[in-house]
């Protein structure tokens, strides 16, 4: 099971700012190890964030996104206490879903 994400969602003036830290090696598939062998690609390809079941962001990523990725975005219409759910899926089919309450 992949390591948990750190999700922070803070509402101010009707806008909720969501900041997510994901634990993932984000291996692009372009690097070689000390022996000269290519390290296989393993990176998050899709991210979906939802609020009350409605998508508030969808992202498609390449291996050029940094290791332990950071993502920040803003949306309207959430109230304090609402849940924001984030799910990532990687090119190997692994995924992780976490949620946080809007503060």
């Amino acid at each position, binding site marked *: 099971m992949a390591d948990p994400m750190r999700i922070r969602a803070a509402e101010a003036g009707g806008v909720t700012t969501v900041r997510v830290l994901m634990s993932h090696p984000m291996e692009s598939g372009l690097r070689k190890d000390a022996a000269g062998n290519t390290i296989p690609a393993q990176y998050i390809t899709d991210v979906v964030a939802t609020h009350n079941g409605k*998508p508030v962001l969808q992202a498609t990523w*390449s291996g050029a996104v940094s290791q332990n990725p950071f*993502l920040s975005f*803003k949306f*309207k219409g959430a109230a304090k206490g609402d849940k924001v759910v984030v799910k990532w899926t990687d090119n190997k089919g692994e995924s992780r879903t976490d949620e946080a309450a809007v503060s």
Partner: protein
Amino acid sequence: MHISSTRRTVLKSTGAMATLLSLGIVTAEQAHAAGRAGFDAKTLDEALKALGGTPATNAQVTIVSPDIAENGAVVPVGAVSKLPNTTEIYLLVEKNPTPLAAGFVIPAGTEPDVQTRLKMGQSTNVLAVVKADGKLYSASKETKVTLGGCGG
């Protein structure tokens, strides 16, 4: 094993796009198209073509990235669009082996303002390309990448 091209196409749209598809937010065509279009492009021009053509530079689009990055492995990059009806945002790193780094679908109610961190192999132009009212607009900025050295 031989996979038909239709099956490959369908497979491409698994994941997040499938969710949006099932929720009726995007059409099957959009799901397929937006799936991984452009991510394999090896030059900036090819990537832009895959996104839909050459975008028009527009001052309402801002690319946020540092002038100098101490390390190319983690460079904070963000894009903000003040254009109404911005539905998609793309981040491109010109000198990367595959310039298209990330794409974001902005549903109604979400601000066209996203930030993430990207890898850059060398000093390069960083671009934000947005789709607003079906047309493409962009902003670009140079980020110098240094190699820090031994300390820190």
